[in-house]
């Protein structure tokens, strides 16, 4: 085996052991859902910073963002302002959600929907949206892991899938046993490795390529001469696209079940508030990493699948042993979010979809959630075995648009009970249908071109479908109120939000 493969194997074995040891952290009864799924709601600022950072900045992010910049130029840089604007939104929204969730004992966002609107249909709709958006995201983590394994020559293409299966079965076992404590502990290793790798890359690689001025000059020429030319700057027709991509993505980042799960594991409101200010440190890293896309252009790296440009860049400029460290960073960087995503999706199923079976929180609910994480991991693995990679990415793009459809009911619902649940459900359904139709029509890209009033306007599908959702939710509520229908059910009180 090469030294890189040895380092990767050792690192993965070490974090798996760490994951099992995590079960003993705090001597908790892991048969209790809040202990298993939310780590007992006792994580402080530092643990939350590592867990949320480890969870939001997935291995796939670190591969896909430079790949996008490599592929489309300036437009691909949208991830950087997006990962910045998400935090002011998080500070305001998540602080309020955390408060009501602690007061009322919520494990998921859909728990809040049930209490706030007393509408079973809306609760299930919100829960299933989270599950549907999480599945392809877990699968993409596996794609990232496979990309790393595929790069290690000894294993080869034939060895990659069995190795991936072993790693994922271990991950499922660790999650089953230790719950959220496992990714929380492993995140310390993951984030440290990612920081070391990215900082090294951003210091070493541009210097080897002759500095940023040179890299940008070469990139400008190369991008312009491609069959589908792009540029270092946005075309005026891309302004609206860029802005809607930034705003739309910033709005849905924290709606994902894995974000919610990590947020609810925080010990206090102050932990959330502090992390809203401290987490953007990861975005600085992401911004520097995005520029590696241009390094790959300048280095003349070409790949059929752009998601392998980062591993290829590392392979070319890092010594063999450090390439092993970088591979471990990406690989473990996929394990942490995959674990939290499967826990988040399992919580939604156990707490909101199957709740009819156990109206009170009971040990049965925990068992359901634990078994469901195994089911979700297995499904994601099958997905990677049988679904071609481009489809996985398409589903993921659609996933963001789906996730944003919970915004009116969930985020606006944190401040107002004005909306009628039936209108919100109609808005959700219309937004969902519109997102799917636009994605289909646009050939599964993230932007859709509107033709209206003799002009065209290309914008983010998630953003357009949210507008449709809002329109229907507001219109429906006005219509229901005009017809004298007003649902009164709301089990939350003003004191729960204080």
């Amino acid at each position, binding site marked *: 085996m090469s030294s890189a493969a040895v380092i990767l194997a050792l690192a993965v074995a070490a974090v798996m052991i760490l994951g099992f040891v995590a079960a003993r952290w705090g001597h908790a009864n892991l048969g209790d859902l809040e202990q298993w799924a939310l780590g007992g709601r006792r994580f402080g600022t530092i643990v939350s910073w590592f867990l949320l950072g480890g969870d939001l900045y997935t291995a796939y992010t670190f591969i896909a963002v430079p790949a996008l910049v490599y592929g489309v130029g300036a437009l691909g840089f949208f991830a950087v302002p997006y990962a910045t604007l998400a935090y*002011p939104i998080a500070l305001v929204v998540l602080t309020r959600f955390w408060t009501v969730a602690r007061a009322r004992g919520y494990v998921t966002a859909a728990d809040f929907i049930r209490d706030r609107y007393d509408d079973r249909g809306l609760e299930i709709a919100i829960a299933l949206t989270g599950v549907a958006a999480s599945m392809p995201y877990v699968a993409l983590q596996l794609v990232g892991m496979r990309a790393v394994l595929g790069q290690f020559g000894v294993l080869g293409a034939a060895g990659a899938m069995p190795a991936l299966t072993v790693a994922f079965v271990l991950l499922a076992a660790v999650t089953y046993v230790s719950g959220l404590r496992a990714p929380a502990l492993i995140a310390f290793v993951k984030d440290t490795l990612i920081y070391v790798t990215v900082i090294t890359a951003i210091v070493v690689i541009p210097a080897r390529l002759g500095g940023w001025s040179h890299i*940008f000059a070469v990139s400008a020429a190369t991008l312009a001469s491609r069959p589908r030319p792009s540029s270092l*700057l946005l075309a*005026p027709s891309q302004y609206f696209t860029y*802005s809607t991509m*930034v705003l739309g993505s910033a709005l849905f980042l924290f709606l994902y079940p894995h974000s919610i799960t990590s947020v609810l594991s925080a010990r206090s409101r102050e932990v959330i508030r502090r992390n809203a*200010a401290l987490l953007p440190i990861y975005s600085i890293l992401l911004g520097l990493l995005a520029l590696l896309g241009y390094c790959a252009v300048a280095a003349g790296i070409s790949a059929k699948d752009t998601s392998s440009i980062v591993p290829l860049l590392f392979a070319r400029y890092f010594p063999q042993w450090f390439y092993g460290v970088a591979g471990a960073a990406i690989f473990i960087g996929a394990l942490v979010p995959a674990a939290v995503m499967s826990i988040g999706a399992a919580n939604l199923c156990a707490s909101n979809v199957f709740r009819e079976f156990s109206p009170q929180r009971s040990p049965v609910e925990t068992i359901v959630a634990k078994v469901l994480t195994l089911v979700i991991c297995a499904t994601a693995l099958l997905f990677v075995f049988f679904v071609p990679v481009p489809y996985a990415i398409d589903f993921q793009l659609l996933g963001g648009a789906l996730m944003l459809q919970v915004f009116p009911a969930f985020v606006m619902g944190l401040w107002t009970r004005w909306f009628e649940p039936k209108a919100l459900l109609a808005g959700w359904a219309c937004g969902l249908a519109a997102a799917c139709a636009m994605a289909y029509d646009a050939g599964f890209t993230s932007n859709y071109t509107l033709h209206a009033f003799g002009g065209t306007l290309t914008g983010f599908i998630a953003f357009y479908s949210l507008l449709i959702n809002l329109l229907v939710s507001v219109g429906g509520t006005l219509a229901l109120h005009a017809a004298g229908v007003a649902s009164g059910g709301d089990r939350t009180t003003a004191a729960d939000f204080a």
Partner: protein
Amino acid sequence: MRRRGWYLLLILPFVGTLLPPLYNRAHPALAGLPFFYWYQLAWVVVTPILLGIVVVFTGEGDRV
């Protein structure tokens, strides 16, 4: 309640980054990075500072 005013600071990053015509330029470059790139990277640094100010000045003295 007057302390809520600090939250208005958080509007700045939105104004600063959601209007691409403001910064879609190559010059002035900084350390080889075109303006478009270093300007947006600057917001990644400035935003957490603004967030930090808001968090500190609207602190509730909660147990951490």
